[in-house]
């Protein structure tokens, strides 16, 4: 694994260092994918976002256009936001690059049958808070109003319930 700092990678890329390019891609692929999963909600568009963003960042680095190399993370995040905004506003397809297609980030797959069982094992309040949070996408304030709880209590219930589910899934997985 390349241990060079972000700023060193950017400088090396501007000098044509292909190993630095690969290191940058390896370092930021999981982070961009995570951003894509959060904002685009699915694996395929998240993968496309990785390619689009890394292409843009590499081009900027090669051309010496990253003004603050030490803040590469901010630059990548800004590129992510712009790419997602373009997708949402204009339905503009994300870019694709053959070389980057080989860069895969393993997805954490959760078997819904196991999840179904783990959620079913929660107490009713924890189960309700999780379903309202992640299915109906209600805020803690909204959930609190519906269940006569404070938003703070809702958050605590949600934290504990998700922790219980995660532990249950870990026990269930081979």
């Amino acid at each position, binding site marked *: 694994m390349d241990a060079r700092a972000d700023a060193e990678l950017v400088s090396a890329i501007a000098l044509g260092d292909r190993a630095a390019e690969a290191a940058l891609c390896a370092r930021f692929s999981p982070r961009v994918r995570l*951003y894509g999963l*959060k904002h685009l*909600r699915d694996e395929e568009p998240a993968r496309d976002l990785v390619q689009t963003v890394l292409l843009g960042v590499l081009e900027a680095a090669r051309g010496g256009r990253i003004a603050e190399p030490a803040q590469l993370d901010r630059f990548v995040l800004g590129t992510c936001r712009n790419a997602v905004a373009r997708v949402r506003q204009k339905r503009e397809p994300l870019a694709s690059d053959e070389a980057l297609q080989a860069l895969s980030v393993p*997805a954490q797959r959760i078997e819904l*049958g196991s999840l179904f069982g783990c959620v079913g094992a929660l107490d009713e309040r924890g189960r309700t808070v999780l379903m309202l949070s992640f299915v109906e996408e209600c805020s803690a304030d909204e959930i609190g109003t519906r269940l006569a709880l404070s938003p703070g209590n809702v958050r605590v219930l949600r934290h504990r319930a998700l922790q219980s589910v995660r532990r249950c899934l870990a026990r269930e997985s081979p």
Partner: protein
Amino acid sequence: MSAHLSWQALVDYWADDHPDPDAVELHTMGCAECTERSASVGAVARALGKLLPPLLTPGMLSALQARGLRIAQNVFAPGDRREVPFPVDLDVLIHRLEGLADDVVRLDFKMFVESTGAAITALDDVPFVQGAALLACQQHYASLPWDAVVELHATHRDGRKSQTRYTILHRFLQA
């Protein structure tokens, strides 16, 4: 935010309930460890978002539609007993269980296996829309017995009770 993100912060972030999601994203973009922890929370959160309660509110259905899930609906009248295919490329199959009177104020739900009588689930005070209950079926229900009988126990405004029954024979199609 320079210290690692807490479990609580990550759960709030993935629940769209963090006071400063931009700060969370900036931190994870610069922190491999927090990226991995956030991915772990996100995987469960995203999977939960795919896991539906049996009976849907109109709000839930709208939220699912807005998310772009592949949803199909089919209608059951009281007393219907019918085989229903569940295509492999469908995310949610909604059984619209019709026949509820306009004056129903509360609905309780029971589901059991037709062939054995074994109980599958029972829920009290479930959501319903005017005239119907929206029963959501997903692919992972293929592990349950295929011959499901649903009973809706309605309480009317004047206190009387009534019941409607629907027999749903699920056939989960293979790819």
